[in-house]
C-alpha cells in the first residue's frame, strides 16, 4: 500500500520542457505545486565538452527512467514491432531542454488551420484523403500571448520579421504577427552563415537568422552563449541555454510554492468513482508513495503521456484514464526531419564551433508560403543550415564524395584531411500529417523494469511526405550550389516507418468534440475535468518547426487557464 503524502493543489508529472514552464504561472498565482521528476538536478560540472563522454551514453548522469521504457515501433499492423535502441529524450530537472538544439520556433499561422486554409486556396480535393488532420481549436493569434510569455520567460534570441504587421526583411517575412521583438537579438553570424545568407538573397529568397532559446547577451542573470560546439546532446556549462532548469523552474521554486521531487518514478494516476483524478502514485528509493492533489497536470513526453494514461485503469476508466471514448493514442505522428541534403565546398568552412541554434533559415518553401497549384502535395519544409562540428563525428560522418576505396589507409587519410571541414548537412523539417492506421498503444510483449508494457508505435509516412521531400532537397541543392558547393547529395527518400522521434505529436488530440478528442481547447481532459495534459501529444500539426516552444506556449496557456479558473476546475 502506498504511503499517503500530504495533499497539494497541483501535482505536475515531469519537470522538463513543459512541466517546468507550467509550474511558473501556477506558483505565481499562489497555488501549491509539486513536480515529480524521474531524473535528478544537474550542475554545470556535468556539462563537460567531452565528445567521448557524450557518445558513450554516460551522460546525462542520474537515473534515466526513459532508457527502461523505450517504445517499440513498426510501420503497420502486419509487422512485429521492433524494440528501439535508445530513447531520444532524457530525465533530469529541465528534461530534454537541457540537451536539445534550442531552436525556438513559433508555428506559422497556416499550421493552425491546415484544413480550412487548404480548402480556401486549392479546394477540398487537395487534402490527402487518408489524413486525419484537423484545424486546431485555437488560432495562432490566441496562442501568440503565450508564445510571447515563453520567449520572455525563458529567454529567446532572434530577429523578428513581423512585429504588429511591420515586416522586417532581415527577419522571417513569413512569420505570424507578433506583439513585439524577441527579448534578445539573434546569435552571432559566422562567415559560413553569411555566405549562405548572401547566396539565398542572390536567389531572391528570404534568409533570416533562426531564433534560439539561448542567450545571445546576458539575460536574467545568465551569461551569453560561448559557442563551444557541444550544445546538442550535451548541456550548457555557463547556463546560456534557456533550459527550464535554469529559467522557469528556479523562478517558480523561488516563490516558495513549487517543489520538485527528484528521482520520482510516476507509475499511475489515480481516480475516484466519479471519474475525477485524485493524485499520482510514484516510486522513490524503492518506496511507493501517493501524492494527493486537486489537479494533476501530465507533462511527460508524448510516449509517456499516452502510456501513463493507458496504464491508469480504474472502474471509472476501464480502458485507461480519459479513454472511455477510445481516443488515447490515436492520430500519432512523428516529424519528418531526416533525409536532408549535404554539400561539399572547395574550401574550409571553419564550422568546428557554434551551436545548432546558430543558423540561417529559409521559409520560402515551408507551410503554404508558396503556390502549390501545380504541385501534388500540401505543406512544405524549412531549409536550415547551422554550424557545429565535433572531431569524432566529423571523421566518422565524412562521406566518400565521389572517392572510391577503403575507409582507412593513407588515401583515406588524405581525403579526411582535405575535406573534413568542407561539408555541411542541411536540416529540413517537413510538414508531417496524421493518418488513419497510425497510433500508439501498449506493447503486448515489451515491458519496462517494473513489468509495465512500453508504448508500441504503429505508423508510416504516406504520399504527401514522399512527394514533398524531393522538391525540398532540390531547393536545398540550388541554395548550396549558389553558395559555392561543388557537390550536393540527397534524394529526399523518406523511408516507411514513422518511428521513435524527438518530435512526436498527438496521441492526446486537442479539440472541441469530446467523442473524437482527448483534451479540450485548454488542454484539459474531456472526461476527467481536473486532469490537464501538456506537451507535443496535444499539438495538432507539426509545421516545419521544432515543437518545443509551441508545446511550452500551450503549457503556459493551460496553466494560466487553470489558475484563472481554479474554483471550477479543482
Amino acid at each position, binding site marked *: 500500500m502506498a504511503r499517503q503524502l500530504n495533499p497539494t493543489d497541483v501535482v505536475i508529472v515531469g519537470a522538463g520542457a513543459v512541466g517546468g514552464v507550467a509550474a511558473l504561472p501556477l506558483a505565481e498565482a499562489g497555488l501549491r505545486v509539486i513536480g515529480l521528476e524521474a531524473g535528478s538536478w544537474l550542475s*554545470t*560540472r*556535468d*556539462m*563537460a*565538452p*567531452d*565528445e*567521448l*563522454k557524450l557518445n*558513450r551514453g*554516460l551522460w546525462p*548522469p542520474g537515473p534515466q527512467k526513459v532508457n527502461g521504457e523505450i517504445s517499440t515501433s513498426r510501420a503497420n499492423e502486419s509487422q512485429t514491432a521492433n524494440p528501439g535502441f535508445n530513447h531520444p529524450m532524457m530525465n533530469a530537472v529541465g528534461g530534454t531542454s537541457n540537451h536539445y538544439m534550442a531552436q525556438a520556433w513559433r508555428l506559422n499561422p497556416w499550421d493552425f488551420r491546415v484544413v480550412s486554409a487548404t480548402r480556401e486556396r486549392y479546394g477540398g480535393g487537395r487534402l490527402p484523403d487518408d489524413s486525419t488532420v484537423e484545424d486546431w481549436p485555437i488560432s495562432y493569434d490566441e496562442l501568440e500571448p503565450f508564445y510571447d510569455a515563453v520567449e520572455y520567460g525563458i529567454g529567446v534570441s532572434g530577429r523578428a520579421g513581423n512585429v504588429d504587421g511591420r515586416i522586417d526583411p532581415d527577419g522571417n517575412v513569413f512569420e505570424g504577427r507578433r506583439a513585439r521583438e524577441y527579448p534578445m537579438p539573434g546569435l*552571432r553570424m*559566422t*562567415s*559560413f552563415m553569411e555566405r549562405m545568407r548572401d547566396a539565398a538573397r542572390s536567389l531572391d529568397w528570404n534568409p533570416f537568422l533562426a531564433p534560439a532559446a539561448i542567450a545571445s547577451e546576458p539575460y536574467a542573470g545568465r551569461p551569453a552563449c*560561448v*559557442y*563551444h*560546439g557541444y550544445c546538442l546532446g550535451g548541456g550548457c*556549462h*555557463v547556463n546560456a541555454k534557456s533550459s527550464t532548469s535554469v529559467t522557469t523552474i528556479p523562478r517558480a521554486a523561488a516563490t516558495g510554492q513549487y517543489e520538485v521531487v527528484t528521482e520520482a518514478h510516476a507509475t499511475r494516476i489515480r481516480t475516484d468513482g466519479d471519474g475525477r483524478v485524485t493524485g499520482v502514485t510514484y516510486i522513490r528509493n524503492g518506496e511507493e508513495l501517493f501524492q494527493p492533489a486537486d489537479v494533476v497536470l501530465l507533462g511527460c513526453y508524448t510516449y509517456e503521456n499516452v502510456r501513463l494514461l493507458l496504464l491508469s485503469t480504474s472502474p471509472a476508466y476501464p480502458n485507461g484514464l480519459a479513454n472511455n471514448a477510445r481516443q488515447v493514442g490515436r492520430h500519432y505522428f512523428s516529424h519528418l526531419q531526416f533525409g536532408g541534403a549535404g554539400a561539399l565546398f572547395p*574550401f*574550409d*568552412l*571553419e*564550422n*568546428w*564551433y*557554434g551551436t545548432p541554434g546558430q543558423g540561417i533559415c529559409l521559409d520560402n518553401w515551408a507551410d503554404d508560403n508558396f503556390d502549390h497549384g501545380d504541385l501534388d502535395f500540401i505543406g512544405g519544409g524549412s531549409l536550415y543550415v547551422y*554550424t557545429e562540428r565535433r*572531431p*569524432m563525428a*566529423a*571523421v*566518422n560522418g565524412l562521406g566518400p564524395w565521389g572517392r572510391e576505396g*577503403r*575507409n*582507412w*589507409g*593513407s588515401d583515406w*587519410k*588524405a581525403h*579526411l*584531411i582535405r575535406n*573534413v*571541414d568542407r561539408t555541411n548537412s542541411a536540416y529540413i523539417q517537413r510538414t508531417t500529417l496524421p493518418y488513419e492506421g497510425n497510433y500508439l498503444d501498449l506493447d503486448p510483449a515489451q515491458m519496462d523494469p517494473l513489468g509495465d508494457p512500453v508504448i508500441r508505435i504503429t505508423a508510416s509516412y504516406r504520399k504527401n511526405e514522399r512527394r514533398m521531400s524531393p522538391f525540398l532537397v532540390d531547393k536545398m541543392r540550388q541554395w548550396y550550389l549558389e553558395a559555392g558547393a561543388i557537390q550536393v547529395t540527397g534524394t529526399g527518400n523518406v523511408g516507411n516507418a514513422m518511428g521513435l522521434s524527438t518530435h512526436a505529436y498527438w496521441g492526446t488530440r486537442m479539440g472541441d468534440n469530446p467523442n473524437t478528442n482527448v483534451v479540450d481547447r485548454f488542454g484539459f481532459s474531456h472526461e476527467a475535468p481536473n486532469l490537464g495534459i501538456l506537451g507535443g501529444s496535444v499539438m495538432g500539426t507539426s509545421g516545419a518547426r521544432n515543437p518545443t516552444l509551441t508545446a511550452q506556449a500551450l503549457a503556459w496557456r493551460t496553466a494560466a487557464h487553470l489558475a484563472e479558473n481554479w474554483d471550477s476546475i479543482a
Partner: protein
Amino acid sequence: MDTGNEKDETRLPRIPQPDLVSRRTAIKTAGVAISAVAVSGSALSAQSETPVTLTPAEYATLDAVAARLIPSDANGPGAREARAARFIDRGLGGALRDALDQYRSGLAALDVFSNTAYGTGFAALSETDQDAVLEAVQDNEASGFDENSGQFFNMVRGHVIQGTFSDPFYGGNDNFVGWDMIGYPGVRTAVPAQYQQMDGEHTPNHVSVYDSTMFDEGEL
C-alpha cells in the same frame, strides 16, 4: 612537453593554464613538441609502452593495426603517434571492458591468419602484407574469428578513431596529433568570434577539457 616519460602515468600531462597569457605561451611550446614528434614519429613503437590490460604481444599487434588504419605518412603522424593503442588498452580495463574478450580472441585470430597466409604474425609483416590482411579481415574473408572478421575490423576501426580524435584525457590523441591532423582548433570553454570566421585565427589551443577543473571527469 616531455613525451618520453609517460608510461607510468595514468593520465596525460597537463599544460598549466593559470591565465590566457600563459595559455598562449603553452600553445607555442606545444607546437614545438608536435614538430619533434612528427620528425621522430616512425621511431615511436609499441615497445615504448607498457600495456596495462593487454599482453605486450597483443598490444604490439593492435598498435600495428592502428598504424595501418591511420598511417603516419607524408600528411603527418597517424594513429600510432596518437597512441590509439594505449587508449584502447586503458579503455579495455575500464569503459571498454565489455570488449576485452573480443579483442583477445580477435587479435589472436589476426595473428593466426597472418601466420597461415604469410608465415609470420601481423606485427612483423610488411606494410603491404599488413594491408592485404586487413582488407581480407574487413571483407569477412579471414578465417578463425569468433563472429565474422568484418565485425572485429569495424570495432577496432571505431576505437582507433576514438583513440586518435577523442580528448587526450583518455590516453589517445597524444600531443593532439589527431586534432591537428584534421585542423580542429581544440576544445574550448568559450570560443571567440574569429574562430567562426573563415579568415579568422584558428590557432589550436592544445588542452584537454579536464585541464580545467570545471568539470567532473569521464570514465577512463
